[in-house]
């Protein structure tokens, strides 16, 4: 299947990311945009652009028939879904393929099977990939006690009808189970109207570690090592890195092979990610599979030197994977911070609005994947991501120190961002030490910093700005001058030697 013109059914940084690779490959790009995105960066960067409706995603970016129409009108022969939106929508994949347009993603069947958590767990078990030990059926207290012994304490008692952390109870030994079960059933009954419970092995301070895999249409598979995404806030990834400070070469190989078992079981094609929970003893358990390119693919690109979007396109064209497992490099360390328009001082409330000023970090080992520019709007209709800032260094601490430095260079005006939050994280000892777990940010470590040593400088600037403003108002009609000053406003003499 030729891929000569790609429609990107997405917006923001990932649309821009895909456009860049297409350009380098000499492939034309087609952007789609909602009314809110007429001036968005992906529209400016693409070779073609078509409006697909009002701002709400349900009326635009999620409208698969509109997108199909644009593909037909523009003559696109492939669609890249990015992440989110239609990327894990099997119906959309089927629709596009049925209309002769290559979907740059896995086969619809793979999306369906991995889309169901219970089905995915069964696939993993059958494939021989470890899952969190437990029984998924409900049974009597006595049978549960027997199973708990088999699984090994501590175990988690979970309400069958529960979800989102509700109706969960940690149990450390047989006695606690005996006394706890009646109470757990009582709570389950009052909360969910059903007293069924099941048990699962409790993983204390789990790490979220995921394996990037790739498959082609010829049955070849490779894994591109792991990413650790344990630094989360309310189950949202905040910082990702590759490799993981927790993973040994043996664990890496074992996790990679386990991930490929799952991929093979569903004849997976393209880029996919198998997510695991890992405990402190380096046991790991299948969590789910994401059947798309991940937000955090950049860190894998840094350490492997590969372009994952290019690989997606090559595979979609029917080509074989360009490398075999033993040709995949693991070089240095990469860290990624998700820069959001949100206010860490106000409980991370989104801060949409116009970006009045923007200077992004640069230099060796720094990569900024952005979907915005100075003057553009962070819309309230979509994910408030500004960019993904990633850095690379020969060692983990090199990458972290580089990130701290790059964050310091970041300047965003007009809206609030979480840059300062990341700066504090880069100096946070538990993070630097590499002892990560998914609950590490639950206790809010973020508070306003002590006043730093450079307050005087900031205040001096503010006073000069106020005085200049006053003088401007006093001496000139409002708004004279052509916007930017064409001569520096300079105060003070050079202290020349």
């Amino acid at each position, binding site marked *: 299947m030729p891929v000569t013109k790609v429609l990107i059914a997405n917006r923001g940084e990932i649309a821009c990311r895909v456009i860049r690779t297409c350009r380098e490959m000499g492939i034309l790009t087609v952007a789609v945009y909602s009314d809110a995105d007429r001036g968005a960066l992906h529209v400016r960067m693409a070779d073609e652009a078509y409006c697909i409706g009002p701002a709400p995603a349900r009326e635009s970016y999620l409208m698969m028939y509109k997108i199909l129409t644009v593909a037909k009108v523009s003559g696109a022969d492939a669609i890249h879904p990015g992440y989110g939106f239609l990327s894990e929508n099997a119906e959309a994949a089927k629709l596009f393929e049925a209309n002769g347009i290559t979907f740059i993603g896995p086969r619809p069947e793979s999306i369906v099977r991995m889309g169901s958590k219970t089905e995915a767990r069964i696939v993993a078990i059958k494939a021989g990939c470890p899952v969190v030990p437990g029984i998924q059926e409900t049974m009597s207290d006595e049978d549960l006690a027997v199973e708990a012994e088999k699984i090994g304490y501590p175990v988690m008692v979970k309400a069958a009808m529960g979800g989102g952390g509700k109706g969960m109870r940690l149990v450390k030994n047989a006695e606690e189970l005996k006394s706890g079960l009646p109470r757990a059933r009582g709570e389950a009954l009052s909360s969910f109207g059903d007293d069924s419970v099941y048990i699962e092995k409790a993983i204390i301070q789990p790490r979220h570690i995921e394996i990037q895999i790739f498959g082609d249409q010829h049955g070849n598979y490779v894994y591109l090592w792991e990413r650790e995404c344990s630094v989360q806030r309310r189950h949202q990834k905040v910082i990702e890195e590759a490799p993981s400070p927790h993973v040994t070469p043996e664990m890496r190989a074992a996790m990679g092979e386990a991930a490929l078992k799952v991929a093979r079981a569903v004849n997976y094609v393209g880029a996919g990610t198998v997510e695991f929970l890992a405990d402190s003893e380096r046991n790991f358990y299948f969590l789910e599979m994401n059947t798309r390119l991940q937000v955090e693919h950049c860190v894998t690109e840094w350490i492997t030197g590969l372009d994952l979007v290019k690989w997606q396109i090559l595979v979609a064209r029917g080509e074989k994977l360009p490398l075999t497992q033993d040709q995949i490099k693991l070089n240095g360390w990469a860290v990624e911070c998700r820069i959001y328009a949100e206010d860490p001082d106000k409980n991370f409330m989104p801060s949409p609005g116009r970006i009045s000023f923007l200077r992004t970090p640069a230099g060796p080992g720094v990569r900024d994947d952005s979907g915005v520019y100075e003057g553009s709007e962070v819309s309230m209709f979509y994910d408030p991501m500004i960019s993904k800032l990633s850095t690379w260094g020969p060692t983990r601490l090199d990458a972290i120190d580089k990130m701290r430095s790059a964050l310091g260079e970041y300047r965003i005006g007009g809206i609030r961002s979480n840059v300062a939050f990341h700066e504090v994280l880069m100096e946070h000892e538990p993070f630097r030490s590499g002892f990560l777990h998914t609950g590490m940010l639950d206790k809010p470590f973020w508070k306003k910093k002590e006043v*730093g040593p*450079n307050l005087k*400088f900031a*205040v001096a*600037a503010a006073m000069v700005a106020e005085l200049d403003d006053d003088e401007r108002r006093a001496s000139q009609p409002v708004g004279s001058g052509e916007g930017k000053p064409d001569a520096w406003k300079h105060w003070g003499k050079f202290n020349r030697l």
Partner: protein
Amino acid sequence: MKRTLLIGKETHDVELLRQDGVARLIWDGVEESLDILEVEPGSWSVIMGGKSVDVRLDTARNPDPDVQAFRATLYDAPYEFALQDPRKALLAAARGALASGGTLTAPMPGKVVKLLVKEGDLVTEGQPLLIMEAMKMQNELRSVSEGVITKVTTSEGATVETGSALITVGPKKA
């Protein structure tokens, strides 16, 4: 230019002077010369005592209109603070004084431009009582309580000193 710096619960007296091409900052009485340049609109390069700091300055919203709040992004961290014109602070204090004593006094030297009420008028909380010109600005002085005007001790065009009694507001009779 003098300002009161408000940061967290701290305050500092700061003053900026420009003379003979030299700028100086006086911080709680300690003077330092500075070299400051607006390198980009809203971005300032500040050199003081050899130290060089790049300051990105954004104004922030502040509930008190007499106070200008700033958010500055520096390499090391963001800084949030506010600057208050000390003369404005005096005005604000004066409004508080009325609340307790019932008599509005002139917060600083100035001129009564316009009286907006006369003796016997019923006034509501927040109602403007007179306009006074001070610091080249016209300031509306308002009533902080409901009541009745019991005494007007000034007149339009009068020049007043700090502390001069202007208007007294008494309790409304039931």
